[in-house]
């Protein structure tokens, strides 16, 4: 049944051209998204003149520090899951040893890497957090009311690269190479979908906080 995965052409495609496509789409799409929003804001005339650099930095720091804001303290369970989740999401792919080895083999460059044990724990945290968010969508009435199929979809898109990566590392369930193909495929799907789904909050977070932080500064109100 899994004969097709033994075909080297699939492996070569997922490892070769698709990586390039995924990164080009991810970087190009993200630049386009951010640029288009800033240009739209510029056309609106009432956004950019009020952006306050000091308030922006303060607002970003305030919300990037766990439990600094009132709402993150109120919803402390979410905070406990969401911060390790996002840290893993952003830093694991960049600093994972296995990824670094691949880059070193291709281009001869590498950078600082995470200890393997720590990376393993961080992956588990990401996977468990995804499960938590999934159950939160189902069981919290306020979240359930605003949940759409797309919400589950973006959760699945973030979940599978980490699950398959974890399984590939431990060589469980499927042969290592098959799992590796799946892992690369899901990772590429995630990269491609970042600019075109609400995963863009990766970039828009900074823009919307800049806007609202500056508004609070304008109103002399506290950033909660």
């Amino acid at each position, binding site marked *: 049944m899994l004969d097709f995965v033994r075909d080297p052409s699939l492996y070569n495609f997922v490892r070769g051209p698709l990586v390039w496509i995924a990164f080009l789409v991810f970087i190009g799409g993200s630049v386009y998204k951010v640029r288009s929003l800033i240009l739209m*804001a510029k056309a*609106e005339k009432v956004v950019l003149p009020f952006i306050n650099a000091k308030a922006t930095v303060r*607002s970003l720091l305030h919300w990037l520090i766990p439990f600094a804001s009132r*709402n993150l303290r109120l919803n402390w369970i979410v905070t406990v899951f969401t911060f390790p989740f996002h840290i893993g999401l952003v830093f694991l792919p960049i600093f994972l040893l296995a990824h670094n080895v691949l880059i070193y083999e291709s281009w001869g460059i590498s950078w600082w890497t995470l200890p393997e044990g720590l990376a393993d724990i961080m992956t588990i945290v990401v996977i468990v957090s995804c499960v938590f968010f999934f159950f939160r969508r189902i069981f919290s009435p*306020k979240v359930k009311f605003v949940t759409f199929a797309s919400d589950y979809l973006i959760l699945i898109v973030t979940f599978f690269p980490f699950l398959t990566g974890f399984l590939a590392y431990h060589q469980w369930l499927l042969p290592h190479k098959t799992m590796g193909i799946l892992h690369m495929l899901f990772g590429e799907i995630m990269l491609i979908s970042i600019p075109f789904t609400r995963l863009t909050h990766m970039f*828009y977070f900074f823009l919307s906080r800049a806007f*609202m932080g500056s508004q*609070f500064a304008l109103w002399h*109100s506290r950033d909660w």
Partner: protein
Amino acid sequence: MAVEEKVVSREFKEYVRKPNPDWGLDETIKGLTPEKIEKTIKAVIGGRSARIKGVIETCIHCALCAEACQWYLSNDKDPTYAPVAKMRMTIWEMIKRDGKVDAEFIKQCARIVFTECNICHRCSMYCPYGLDITFIIGMVRRICFLLGVVPQRMIDQAYAQSTTLNQVWLSQNDWIDTIQWQEDEVGVDFKDLRIPIDKEGAEVMWLPLGAEPKTGPYHIERTAKIMYAAGVDWTVPGKDVWDSSNMPMFIRDFVTMQRIVRGLYENAARLRIKKMVLTE
């Protein structure tokens, strides 16, 4: 006659409310046509300004804004009162259906945005992204206003302000007359107290709310006493606009809203005052 107990939304089964008859909502929707609704929705949100696009494309539907809302907290944490739920039931649905909604839906939107939200901005303070949910609610209010579907009391005040530049249908003569009457009243306690009208170069210009000369003139008397005791060099404008409330703002009637603010600043510039002091 049997009284209808509950209103259950057609689209959202969770949205259950008591009936709330209002001429401004029930009667005005009768004149709406689907074409008119679609055209209005597209005129307001069709261009997708950065502020609308930013909110719609960033919101991850986490419902962390819910705890910010006094409506949510004071209604036993009913999920339909959460700020994000209000967006979901109004603008998300309009975008999803590309503006093709019916009059009944507009009435429901009007009920949600006018009577279940105070546009207080607390949800933006609780949102991890700082999304301007209030701006979105304001845009839905604008759609409803342009379609004429506004609670009767709100549209009454806004009409008053667009006609007389104050929310209580008080003419300029009545305003000056009320000020002078209150000056007479204060004279019992303070012989040399004056309420200076149109005093050029004064330090402070006091701007009351419309209701003060209309239904609570003693507020003017008391303000005068406070200013007198504090030794403030103050004045009140003798020309429109003197009402510092801005009811058109609440229905997002941008034209009248701007006329009010412009009028206040024109008075300030005319009298060359340094500070404006507003009631409330």
